[in-house]
């Protein structure tokens, strides 16, 4: 099976490139990035602020089942060209991770398909590698939280 989402982190540079082709027209793909209520659905996070313009800011927040905030991220939008590109910074609050620079490029393939190129630049190679370990750590945390939920119900 061909993998639709490709991650290239091999070059030992402080960057990751994520590419994905969508069975969606370019306009719909782009919309999924700028409409707060849609972003909330697929990112699984609450959108506190999303100003889609140059010098605009954004802030996302994720809470657990008990309403405790477990993740908050923010940044500034540097470039915003509809249906073409978004350049923004990304910072996870209350973590030792330095701010990242993210380049999103949206591309039309056919009338019904499109492509996203997401290029993330980190402060250092070590910071990048640390972040690559994150989803795994998060997976464990989430499993743990779910266990906690089940246990709480038993009480």
């Amino acid at each position, binding site marked *: 099976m061909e*993998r639709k989402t490709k991650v290239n982190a091999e070059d030992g540079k402080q960057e990751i490139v994520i590419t994905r082709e969508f069975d969606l027209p370019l306009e*719909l793909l782009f919309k999924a990035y700028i409409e707060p209520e849609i972003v909330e*659905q697929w990112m699984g996070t609450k959108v506190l602020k999303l100003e889609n313009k140059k010098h605009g800011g954004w802030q996302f927040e994720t809470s657990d089942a008990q309403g405790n905030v477990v993740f908050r991220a923010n940044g500034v939008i540097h470039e915003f060209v509809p249906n073409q590109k978004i350049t923004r910074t990304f910072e996870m609050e209350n973590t030792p991770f330095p701010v990242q620079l993210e380049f999103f490029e949206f591309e039309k393939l056919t009338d019904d398909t499109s492509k996203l190129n997401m290029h993330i630049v980190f402060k250092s190679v070590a910071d990048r590698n640390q972040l690559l370990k994150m989803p795994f750590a998060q997976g464990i945390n989430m499993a743990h939280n779910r266990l906690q939920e089940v246990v709480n119900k038993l009480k």
Partner: protein
Amino acid sequence: MNLRRDVFQAIADPTRRAILVLVASQSMTAGAIASNFDTARPTVSKHLQILTECELLKQEQNGREIYYHLNAEKMKEVADFIEPFRKMWDDRFNKLETIMKNYKSNT
């Protein structure tokens, strides 16, 4: 130096990646590996040392010769490392695609 033990540093270098591909099919001596590159022999030795230090290569004494072979388990670790990250984004993008397909049919 600690950085040298970082697996990602190890596979960052194109020559080191080429070495890994070479020994993937068969165990080889340092000399045999070096003969595949234009690079000076000491440079190749240095690469082999780095790859061995971070356990991507294993050394095996065979008579007077030392053979290098791939440590498949460690290589898998590298792949496993990126895979959860890729999976996370793949899941998110699949969701995005489903949501927008519904969005399209509703308008």
